[in-house]
Every structure is written in structure tokens, then in C-alpha cells.
């Protein structure tokens, strides 16, 4: 109802009397745009739902893979519908692009209307103020001119007043306020576009990559160093900032007692980093405290354990050595990992199993009773033969290809399992060699990303909020005060003071709430009180 278009002033009930063209325009605005916008908004809400129940490739690629394995029938259907990447899908984009279109179609004309309205005078008082839904009157013996002057004074403070044009009747004061509401509304809707622009820039030019780094290792920022890399459509490798950093140390403060025992209180990774050929600096990377280098941010987002394991092959040569990243399976940090000694002779050796940070047997089952590596143990099964590494097919470092490998068994036919504590060494059967567990190193997972446009988006939402507050809290309204000498014969004055000989003045006060949400009765009562106040002080 705030449509600045509406010109109800001369005739508050003018809607039926609009010209056909105006009617058409009004219909177009009200029905097409507002209702379309509303329907599109609700559609957008609806369309966002599937992405919260179905795993999303952009959020959790692993979960998507798992889901696909479990639902082989549904997968092709879901894939056709883009249900694994809802928020990049054609249909989702279509809805919000339509919304943007509708938004532009809505704002642009309103901008012009508003520009005009800003310069317009408050309209003349309607002929019959008592026809407005909110109106009141009182009778006074002050002269009309006096009342009107007072009205100008009272209203002039917070309202824009109509300046009297030559030849106009001057028995009334017209006042209007709350022009900024529409400005707020326009600012809000424009800001939505700004936010979308910021978001789009981030999506197109930004990237995020992740890498797991064992304590002591160094990362230098180039594409090949990332474990996973998710660039925007217009990303170019030249964007990568030139830096490297080393994880000198990683510490977790575990809570040892109390209700939160077993949860981490703090994580710190001490880094030393270098920008280009600059000097080396150090930084304590923590959760909630990313390191910013150029346009790139480095975040600490996960951690785990990398057992250091050495495999000597049947010929006594070291076929594999070093810390191997094991992935935590749950909050107890029991972690899963595989080791592939591809150069082992006479045949390749693969290990697959679990790492327990604080190993205990609980009713015969192996468990970890604490997530810190207080009493670590690795427990692994052994495979030998062809690990599928030579086929040229890309292989995950976290998966052991057992298709052509054979499990190493004990004499009695049960699987051969090695359980090692740090420093332990075990001899594999069949002359395969030996395995030693040398110790444990922590690893951290860092996320490295550029998010251009984030400041634009932020500025957009802040502007939107400001506009929103203006749009919601400003209450635009018009107030008219009319003062007329009451003809003694006129009973309309209906006042008990009107004695017939003394001249009385009837003061009518009426208002029009343009937001539809204000409490005009109270406003009018205030205006009347202020007007009367003056009268009393003068008499």
C-alpha cells in the first residue's frame, strides 16, 4: 500500500476513478510484480530444501560418493535433476534469475516514482476530512488563522509542509513525513543485487583447496600441491599468491577430566611462512584465526594422526618409510589408513588397518579410550601381490586395491594381523619382509582459499539491513489540519461550547497512514494536544 504511485489525496477513495491507463499500470505493479515476486520467493525457499537433505558435491564429496553407492537406482535420476549440486543447478538458477529480473523490473520504475515523490509537495487537504478513516475534531474560540499558524509550527518540526500556492484555499495545513521509508525499501532491494553480485564474483573468480600436511612438512602454493582444488569458472592459476609455509609444530589441548573429557579445548599449528622471497615470519594458526597472505586465507580445519611406519622387503631394502596419513573415523580418533610398498621385492606389500591413539581392549574389542596419542597402537592386515598400482589408473591413497592382491594368512588359515606399538617390529610370513612402527606424527588439514567479492557481499548485506530498518520502522503518513469558523447555524459543530453568539472555530485533524501499520489515532491525539496546548497558553 505504500506504493508512492497512489495519489489518494484529493479523493481518498479514488481507486475506482483511476483512468484506464493508470489502472493498467497499477494492476501491472500490484498483481504481476508483487505477486510474482512473492511466488518466486516461496519457490526459492522450496527449491532450496532438497540440497539440505541430499548430500551436495560442493559440501561433502565423500558423502555423495557414499550415497551413490547405496542408491544405485536413484542415482541416475538424481544426476539428471542435478540434485547433487542443487545450488548450481539450472532450475535453481532459473528461479533466482527470474527473481532478479522481477526485482529490477520493480525497482527501476519505483526509483523514478520516488525521485518525483521526493520533490512533490504534500497534497492538498481532501475536501471532506471526516471521510478519512482516522480523523478527529475539536472546537476552540481561537481564530482559524491562529490555529493554522500553530499547526504549521507544531507539524513543521517533523513534517514537510505544503507551501500555499497562489489562489489556493488556505483553510488547511497539509503535512507529510516518512519519505525515507521508500528510500529504505529501494536501498534494501538494490542491496540484494549487490549481494548477489558479490556472491557471483566469489563463485567465478575464487577457489578453495584443501591439503593435509604432516607436522614438519612444507606447502608451497601451486596447483600440484593441493589434495583437492575447487576453482570458480573464471579462475586462472596466475591468481595464486606466491607463498610457502612449514608446519613446525601442532598441539591440541585435550580435556582430561570433567564432563567434556575427550574433547579438544584448543588447536594450534605453529607455522613459519614466507611470501615470495620475503623474510620468514611465524604465525600460530588456530581455529577461528586464519592466516591471510595477499588475497589468500589459510584456515586450520581438521587434524589427525600419521603413524610412521617402515617396511623392509624380503631383500632387506627399505620399501616404504615415513608418516602416513590415517583418517579419523569418529570422535575417538580411531583412524583408518593404508600403506602401499610398491617397490617391495619379490612382491608388493600392502597394509590396511586402524590406528588407536590410546589403545585398550574393552570386553575383548579393541577401542581407543582417549583421542590423544597416549598409548598408540596400529593394527593392520597384510596383502601381497599386485596392488594395482601399475595399471596406470588413478588410485586414492586412502584405498587399497585388493582385486589382484592376496591376503597374507597364518598357517591356520586365519588372516595374519600385525599389532604394533611404537618401536615394535614384526616379521611378515612368506619372506615378505618386516614392518616397524617408529612413532606418530600429527597432521593438520588446512583449507586455502581466495574469496574475492566477499567485501562486496558484506557491504551489500549491511546496506540491506540499513535499508530494511528504514523500510520497516519508518512510518510514512500525511496529516491535515483544517480550521474553519463555524457558522452559528451549523449544527455540525455539535459542540457544547458553541453558544451561538460567540464565534467558534472547528478544527478538523485527519491523517493517512501510508505504511498501513501505524497507530494513527495516537498520532492525531498528540497533534490535537499540541494544538490545544497553544490555545490554553494564549488565553
Amino acid at each position, binding site marked *: *500500500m*505504500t506504493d508512492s504511485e497512489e495519489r489518494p489525496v484529493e479523493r481518498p477513495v479514488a481507486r475506482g476513478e483511476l483512468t484506464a491507463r493508470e489502472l493498467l499500470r497499477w494492476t501491472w505493479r500490484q498483481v504481476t510484480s*508483487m*505477486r510474482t*515476486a*512473492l511466488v518466486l*520467493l*516461496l519457490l*526459492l*525457499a522450496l527449491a*532450496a*530444501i532438497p540440497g*539440505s*537433505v541430499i548430500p551436495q558435491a*560442493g*559440501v561433502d*564429496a*565423500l*558423502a555423495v*560418493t557414499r550415497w551413490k553407492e547405496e542408491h544405485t537406482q536413484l542415482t541416475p535420476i538424481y544426476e539428471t535433476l542435478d540434485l547433487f549440486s*542443487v545450488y548450481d543447478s539450472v532450475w535453481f538458477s532459473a528461479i533466482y534469475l527470474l527473481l532478479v529480473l522481477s526485482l529490477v523490473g520493480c525497482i527501476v520504475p519505483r526509483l523514478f516514482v520516488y525521485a518525483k515523490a521526493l520533490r512533490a509537495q504534500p497534497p492538498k487537504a481532501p475536501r471532506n476530512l471526516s471521510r478519512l478513516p482516522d480523523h478527529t475534531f475539536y472546537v476552540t474560540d481561537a481564530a482559524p488563522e491562529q490555529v493554522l499558524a500553530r499547526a504549521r509550527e507544531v507539524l513543521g518540526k517533523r513534517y514537510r509542509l505544503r507551501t500555499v500556492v497562489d489562489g489556493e484555499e488556505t483553510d488547511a495545513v497539509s503535512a507529510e513525513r516518512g519519505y525515507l521509508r521508500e528510500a529504505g525499501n529501494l536501498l534494501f532491494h538494490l542491496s540484494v543485487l549487490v549481494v548477489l553480485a558479490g556472491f557471483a564474483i566469489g563463485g567465478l573468480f575464487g577457489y578453495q583447496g*584443501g591439503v593435509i600436511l604432516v607436522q614438519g612438512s612444507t606447502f608451497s602454493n601451486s596447483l600440484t600441491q593441493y*589434495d583437492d582444488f575447487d576453482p570458480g569458472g573464471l579462475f586462472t592459476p596466475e591468481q595464486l599468491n606466491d607463498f610457502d609455509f612449514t608446519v613446525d609444530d601442532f598441539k591440541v589441548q585435550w580435556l582430561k577430566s*570433567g*564432563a*567434556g573429557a*575427550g*574433547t*579438544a*579445548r*584448543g*588447536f594450534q599449528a605453529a607455522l613459519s611462512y614466507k611470501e615470495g622471497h620475503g623474510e620468514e615470519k611465524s604465525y600460530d594458526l588456530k*581455529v*577461528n*584465526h*586464519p592466516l591471510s597472505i595477499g588475497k589468500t*586465507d589459510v*584456515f586450520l*580445519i*581438521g587434524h589427525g594422526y600419521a603413524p610412521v611406519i617402515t617396511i623392509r622387503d624380503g631383500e632387506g631394502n627399505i620399501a616404504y618409510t615415513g608418516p602416513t596419513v590415517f583418517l579419523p573415523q*569418529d*570422535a*575417538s580418533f580411531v583412524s583408518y589408513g593404508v600403506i602401499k610398498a610398491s617397490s617391495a621385492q619379490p612382491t608388493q606389500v600392502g597394509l590396511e588397518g586402524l590406528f588407536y591413539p590410546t589403545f585398550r581392549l574393552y570386553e575383548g574389542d579393541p577401542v581407543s579410550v582417549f583421542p590423544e596419542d597416549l598409548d598408540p597402537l596400529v593394527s593392520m592386515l597384510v596383502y601381497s601381490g599386485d596392488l594395482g598400482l601399475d595399471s596406470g589408473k*588413478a588410485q*586414492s591413497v*586412502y584405498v587399497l586395491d585388493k582385486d589382484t592382491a592376496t591376503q597374507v594368512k597364518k598357517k591356520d588359515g586365519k588372516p595374519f594381523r600385525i599389532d604394533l606399538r611404537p618401536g615394535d617390529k614384526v616379521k611378515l610370513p612368506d619372506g615378505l619382509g618386516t614392518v616397524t612402527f617408529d612413532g606418530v606424527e600429527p597432521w593438520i588439514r588446512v*583449507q586455502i*582459499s581466495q*574469496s574475492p567479492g*566477499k567485501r562486496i*557481499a*558484506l557491504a551489500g*548485506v*549491511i546496506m*540491506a*539491513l540499513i535499508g*530494511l530498518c528504514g523500510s*520497516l520502522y519508518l512510518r510514512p503518513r500525511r496529516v491535515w489540519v483544517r480550521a474553519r469558523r463555524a457558522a452559528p447555524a451549523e449544527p455540525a459543530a455539535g459542540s457544547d461550547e458553541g453558544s451561538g453568539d460567540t464565534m467558534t472555530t472547528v478544527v478538523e485533524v485527519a491523517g493517512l497512514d501510508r505504511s*498501513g*501499520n501505524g497507530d494513527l489515532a495516537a498520532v492525531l491525539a498528540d497533534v490535537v494536544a499540541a494544538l490545544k496546548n497553544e490555545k490554553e497558553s494564549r488565553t
Partner: protein
Amino acid sequence: MSNAAWETLSNQAVAAAGLAYFIALLVHLAEWAALRQVAPREAALVGAAADGGESEVAAAPESDGRRTPGERVAFLGRLGFLVTCIAAGAHLVALVGRGMAADPNRVPWGNMYEFTTTGTFVVAVMYLALYRKFRLDWLAPLVVGFVLTTLMIAVIWLHEPVQPLREALNSYWLVIHVVAAIIATGAFTLGGMASLVYLLKARAGDSAKATQGWMARVPDLVSLDKIAYRVHAFAFPVWTFAVLITGPIWAHEAWSRYWNWDPKEVWAFITWVVYAGYLHARATAGWKGRNAAILALIGLATLWFNFIGINYFSTTSQHSYAIEGPVKAGVSRLPAG
């Protein structure tokens, strides 16, 4: 006081608050029952006067000194209000105790139990604060009943001993983000109640029910719509601030992405869009009133679903208070290859 003593105090204060809300509910139900004996017109007057104290009806005691039905209603209304104030006081003590029990002291918003107790507190306090301004006496049974029920749910199903904050929550953005989200949640809940009453009243129409007892005290549809709108209009910018400004800032610091379409984020966005729809609906011919009120309730449903329900539907949320154990962020996102 030791931490354990604070925790005990907090638990006792929750119990006390629950008891007081329960008494307040009984008082309001008695008030409601008493309303039936009051003539319809009188009932409306009592309603109007309950905030001011003086009323033409209540001011005329019967000669034998017994209260008139109108007086009794007004008295019970005032009593219920007072008991609710006491309950809210105990509720506040419970929240403060929760924060003091943690080592180091912290804001009491670390898990679902704490969110829920704080959220209900906001509902109660907002109701008390707006009681006079909007003459909310008619909303009393609904508010007190809701707060009591939700508090019970929190104590029975969501209660957890005091723990230090998880690392990802340990940020001053938590304070800002969460406090805004909780205030908005409380306000949306209160506004949703007004919209619900709007729908009930619209449904009752001019039937006999609408002119008797409780319904007669409920403001007319236009005023109800305005009250609902005002509360929503307060909540919406606060929600915007919480989920579209501070949420992304915090997410950027903690998880490296300011918006990741994580299920919690998706639902916060859905809630936001639905409420934007509500605000639009109020300005759209044909959608005003009933449809707008329905949208407000849909918005509220999405809000509470996000708060509690989504945790059971999706496991990928990074909002770590929803999952057990240490921060899993990132670990679940490990590359498959």
C-alpha cells in the same frame, strides 16, 4: 561459589522456573475459566482494562465485598502476570548459573539445551516487555504454555552437563551471532503466536465462540495483524543480522567459507526467504491477512525445524554443537582421491 555449585544452582533454578510457569499457566487457565461467567461485552472491557488497572467493570465491587466475575478475571490476570515475572527471574538465574559453572566462564550458548533455555527465556521476556504496550493478556496462556512445554523438553531430552565451549564456538562472533539468532527466534515465536491467534479468530468469525470467553478478549483481526507484523518486523532484521551478516563472518573465520550451503545455512536462508515472503504478502492484495499469517507460521516451522529437526536429517552440518565429539570440520570433507 564453585563451578559445581553454580551448575546445581542453575539446575534448581530451571526447576523453580518450570514450577512457576506451571503455576502461572494454572492461574491463567483459571482466569480463562472465570471469563465464561463474564458477559461478553464486559469481558472485552476487562481485557482492555487489565493493563491500566482501572476499569469501569472492576471498579464496581458488589456490596457484600465479594469479587464480581469481572474483578476476579482482572485479579487472576494480574496474578498470572506477576507469577510469570517471577518465573522469568528464576529462568534468568538458571542461565547465569550455566555460564558461571563453565570454566572459564562463558556465555550459556554452547549446546542445544542452552540454546533452548535461552530461546524460551527470550520469548518470556519479550512477552512481559510488550504486555502493556500491546495489551497481551490474551496471549498469556499460549506464551506460558509454550515456554513451559519447551523448557520441559529441554530438561528431559536435551540436558547436558556444563562443558567448555568447543573450539569452533570459541569466538566472540559466537556471542554476537548466537545472541542475535536467539533473540530473533524468540521474537519470531511470539509473532507466530499472534499469527496463530489471528487464524483462530478469523476462523471463529462471528460465531458464538468468537464473542464469548477468551476469544472475546482477543483484539480484532486488524489489530492482531498489526501486532503480529510489528513483532515480526522487529525479528526480521535481527535474523538478517544473525544469519546473513554475523553467521557468514564467523563461518569465514572458522570454516573458510562464508557461505557453504551447509544444511543449517540452507534452512536459515529458507526461513529468511519465507519471512521475506510474509512481509511481501502483507503488502500484496489477496495475500494480506490470512495468507500472510499462514506464511508467518510456515516461517516459524522452518525456524524450529532448523533449530532442532535438521540435526536428525542430515549429518553433514558443520555446526558442531549438533554433532558429538570434537570439531569434525574438514575431516568429513577429505578428498576421495
